[in-house]
């Protein structure tokens, strides 16, 4: 994809061995025209962990998430500064094809968005159409495996040819997760995935996130602090476009070091 990295990314503060984190940012700034969405963010996400991005509305967490898979630049007038490193390679280096980047970093959105003209099975396989060729048999296996990983297989295995619009909101969101994992990306980004779901659906997705981290690296944006406390290993707190504090989730929620973090966590604002 690109030339080898100049040096490995810095080690995380948790004093683990100095391996290259799966996904990292260095001085990342994202502009909308002349105003910045996020400024100078340096963050590392280790493999097989769940990183939660929390903060009040407008703090830039969704902007940061969309910068990680080069979706931010799809809006006209936007610009990116700094680096985003996937396995040490800068995805914003000139010459890198953003389409290829998005095949390695998947995204699930706030509202479930199944493709309405495709069946459930075709939806799950939608990501395969742009990857490497697979045989019919492999395709069926991949669909089943993805649906199992999304905890949806038992509910839809007898109606794979049906329209996804017959499913409930929570099931549709799990379908979107299955669609995202089917092409085996390396990182999965979740942008407030349970915002439009009821508590049962939310619980399903949260269980799913715990399962997904065994195979993928997950970054989740959530405005629900309790959710962040439940599902993530590392939490990053943002405020007004800046990364205020990042650390292991248990420490962030019990003994935050910055006053703004503590104010947000205890509900004094946001």
């Amino acid at each position, binding site marked *: 994809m690109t030339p080898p990295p100049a040096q490995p990314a810095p080690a995380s503060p948790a004093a683990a061995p100095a391996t290259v984190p799966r996904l990292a940012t260095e001085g990342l700034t994202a502009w909308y025209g002349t105003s910045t969405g996020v400024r100078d963010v340096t963050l590392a996400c280790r493999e097989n962990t769940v990183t939660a991005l929390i903060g009040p509305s407008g703090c830039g967490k969704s902007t940061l998430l969309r910068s990680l898979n080069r979706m931010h630049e799809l809006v006209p007038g936007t610009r990116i500064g700094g680096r985003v490193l996937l396995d040490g390679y800068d995805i914003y280096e000139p010459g890198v094809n953003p389409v290829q980047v998005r095949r390695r970093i998947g995204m699930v*959105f706030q509202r479930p*968005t199944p493709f*309405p003209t495709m069946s459930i099975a075709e939806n799950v396989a939608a990501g395969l159409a742009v990857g490497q060729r697979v045989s019919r048999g492999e395709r069926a296996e991949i669909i089943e495996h993805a649906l199992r990983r999304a905890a949806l297989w038992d509910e839809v295995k007898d109606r794979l040819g049906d329209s996804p619009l017959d499913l409930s909101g929570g099931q549709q969101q799990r379908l979107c997760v299955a669609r995202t994992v089917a092409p085996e990306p390396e990182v999965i980004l979740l942008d407030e995935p349970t915002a439009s779901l009821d508590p049962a659906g939310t619980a399903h997705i949260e269980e799913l996130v715990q399962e997904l981290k065994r195979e993928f690296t997950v970054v989740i944006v959530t405005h629900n602090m309790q959710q962040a406390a439940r599902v993530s290993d590392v939490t990053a707190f943002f405020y007004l476009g800046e990364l205020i504090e990042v650390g292991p989730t248990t420490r962030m929620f019990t003994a935050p070091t910055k006053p703004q973090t503590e104010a947000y966590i205890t509900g004094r604002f946001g």
Partner: protein
Amino acid sequence: MHGRLARRLVGSTMTGLTYGAAALAILPLAVILAMLLVKGTGSIDWNFFTKAAVPFGEKGGGFSHAIVGTLIVVGLACAVGVPIGVATGIFLAEFGGGRLGFTVRFVADVLNGVPSIVIGIFAWTWLVKPMGHFSALAGGCALGMILVPILARTTEEMVRLVPNSLREAALALGYPRWRTSLVVVVRTAAAGIVTGCLVAVARVAGETAPLLFTALGNQYFSTRLAGPMAALPLQIYVYALGPYDEWHRQAWAGALVLIVLVLALSLFARAVIRAKRQHA
């Protein structure tokens, strides 16, 4: 109470007026249909659909040449107008944000307002005159030119209705822009695009003026694309103005067949929408 009664009266009067306006709007269509059914049904027989025109005033002739002619000319119009119009509509919706999109949209809107006889004269100048003779091809092209701006705008509207979240979902999967537009967006908007096509085709099927200088019309049964061709509206026009009662009878029948064709296409288009809405 005085106030309440007055309010109720005003409310009822206004509601009644809107119902009345709706009835007035439907009235012309109802009257036209009734009139055509009364005057035309008697002349519809087997000969009407199987025989072409016979010598002046004789009985036993039909409109087969005109019916087949309309089908051919409208078919040609679709072959020319549908691909160009729909593709332009997709371009406008997906990539039409800048100056080029603004210009294309403006030109399409202007063309939509150009009288169809002017389109006919334009086609005569650029197709009939160089070719040296009238032809079904020229007629098809003239009707196609009418189709293109209509389809461009209706297709654009339908494609715009596809929510942006679907485009984002496809792009996030690693679909390149062209594939997102074609496979995800157009597929989702397909039913609406087809409906737009059906309604536009129903409209051009009844256009007479553009065919006056291009297809010209033909007394004989012909399927030769490079020669003059009969069409329902043209034949109705000629027969209605003629002196023979037999011709008048057949003109009524032709008008009935034409309006049944237009109605059938429009009803089919609505059925397509309803089927799609139920599925969604």
